[in-house]
């Protein structure tokens, strides 16, 4: 039994501390996923609290023959989707203050010289320009290396549809990058 399933088993036996551990295990990654969709810490916290309450209340329905992370991301996506449909808020552009400092210490980029704040600001706004489904697929694909099969389960679409949405997301990013270049905005 892996760590998650052990925690789930304990929660279902009434161990609230186990649930506290489960929240801590997932809170940052789910917070990141939701924050990239909402741009707002406040909204993200509200949504995330609702996600965990649902997880707790419906945990007995979780079937451990499936991945728990897929199950919890599915709840997260549905919670966001419901709120997003109600709200239909206007997109807000990121500002330079929204860029996390820790990003600059990351290594692995072939051309270090491009790692500037402005570059990340452009990237964040490019991702934000994707439509909701493309953005979700793109984030899920990178946030936890979800397979297209897992993404299809989370979003309740076919595997082929999730693959297609991801490919279209990349094409949209490339097209918007070209448009930026035409306006003189280079990476």
């Amino acid at each position, binding site marked *: 039994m892996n760590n998650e399933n052990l925690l789930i088993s304990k929660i279902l036996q009434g161990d609230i501390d186990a*649930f506290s551990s489960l929240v801590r295990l997932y809170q940052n990654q789910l917070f990141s996923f939701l924050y990239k969709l909402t741009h707002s810490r406040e909204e993200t916290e509200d949504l995330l609290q609702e996600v965990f309450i649902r997880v707790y209340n419906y945990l*007995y329905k979780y079937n451990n023959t499936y991945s728990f992370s897929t199950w919890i991301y599915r709840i997260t996506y549905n919670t966001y989707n419901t709120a997003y449909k109600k709200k239909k808020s206007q997109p807000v552009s990121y500002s330079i203050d929204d860029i996390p400092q820790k*990003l600059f210490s990351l290594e692995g980029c072939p051309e270090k010289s491009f790692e500037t704040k402005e570059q990340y600001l452009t990237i964040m706004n490019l991702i934000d320009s994707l439509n909701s489904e493309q953005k979700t697929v793109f984030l899920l694909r990178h946030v936890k290396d979800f397979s297209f099969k897992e993404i299809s389960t989370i979003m309740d679409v076919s595997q082929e549809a999730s693959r297609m949405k991801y490919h279209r997301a990349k094409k949209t990013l490339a097209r918007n990058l070209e448009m930026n270049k035409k306006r003189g905005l280079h990476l």
Partner: protein
Amino acid sequence: MKCNYYDKILEFEEHSASVQEKDEILKHISSCENCKELYNMLYLSSVYSSYEYEARSDFYKQVIASVDSKKYKSKSFMLPVLIFFEKLKPAFKPLITGMSVTALLFLIIIYRGQLYEFLRLDAYPSKNPYNVNEISFLRTDGENLVMNNGNNILLNGVNLTNNVWGNWVSGVSEKLEAEGKSPLVKPVVQDSWVLADVDFKRIEDMGCNSVRYDFNYQLFDKSNPNQISNILKLKSDIQHFYSLNIYTVLCMSIVPGLDTINDTSENTKPPLYRMKSVFESDEYFNQWKEIWEYVVEQLKDTPGLAGYEIMCEPRLPSEKDGGLKLFQKKLNNLCSAIRKVDRNRIIFVPEYQSREANPGEKYYHEDNTIIDSGEQGIIWETGFVKVDDSNVAYVFQFFDPYEYTFYGKGDYTIEDLQSLVEKRAMWARTIGKASLVARYGISRINPSQQRVSWLQTVHSIFSKFNISSSYHEYKNLVGTYNPSNDGFFAIYGQYNNWKNEISLTGNSYSFLDKDMEYTAETTKFKDVLDRFFFKDGKIESVSIMDNEDILNTLKDYWKN
């Protein structure tokens, strides 16, 4: 121009690419600025997407405070059961779906009749919001006609003859007459005057619940180029009546071969030269059958259609030509052909109205009694034959006594009339079927009071035997050559041809020639014209004439 590597970079996935692929890409972007920018954008996008923000360190406390910490403790006994059922859910889904589909199919099979009728009626909602469900699908149930709800219904209404017998066409009719044929030319398109919007309104105001709609076979013969537009017009008329809560009984009153109109020219000819009937000629029978098959196929789903009266006033062939057996066989064949197309509508089977005499039999011709010596004289005798179909009703004509209703001669007693109706009603009852009066009426040659009296008498008889009836007829042409006295049964007269007969001058009119004026005076049409159609220097093309009392008598009957 787009670089060849552009699409490769778009499809490139860092974690799943081979070392070789990655090297190839990196080598390329070192020399291609555009691809380098694309690569970097995608790379940085993935870095940003996977970057993990940190929630408040005490966020989990807020969550724990929001949940019911005893939820799972208090359900410790029930929880294994809940979990067990949750695990079974994937198996339940197809099981429940299968059971639901089976139950639905079962209900559809049980209630298919009602469902079919509901869908059909819903497609053509009634215009009258208070009587939405008055019109329903009809069928026979033993001696009765019944509606969907199981209630019995009597179809009481008027006969629309629709000028099926045709028109005198100058230049053609004279020639036909000279050849010893019927001079009237049957229309290949229904005359527009027979059923206009104003007619629907008048019929609605009469308060009857049905019309017997006559048509001639030529309208729907495959050789008629207007076949499709004719059937659409007929369908539209049925739907129009339906919207007024009026049923339509379709009657092919003019069939291929011998019919009630050309019979006047044919019945004096020797058998070899006489036009054959649908019972005597396979060619005419097949044409009759094909036209019915076409009409039924096109109209079977039309709401408000009560059923099909297969022909009007058939004549039994002589025994030499097959007699009663052949007549019955052909009726059965036709009913069977109709039933193959429409399983549901009522088929109205007519009584034979006359028969061909057999050698040695007496028949009457022009007030003389003649012994038939093979010429197949006409014997005016009626009778039903049973057909094998279960959803049929039997119809008969009622113009009795003939001399009285047509020519105002002689008299009648209620007992005589009652025995004639009783004979038919009892025959149908003995085989457990309904009988209906397809046509009944009395001509204008009788004074109004006599006509009213005759109508009230026959209505009381129809009521006594609980049989439906259709008054003959709603409307007919009047004119110098259409005498509106003897043989004129219509409630309304229509003077269509006035421009070819008279000219208007100030407040008066004059006939176009002396012959016409003489004929109009002889046939008493001039009197009709002066009283009912010429008003204030103008011609009113449609008039109820002096038939108000007739209409009121009918209305009283239909109301009850």
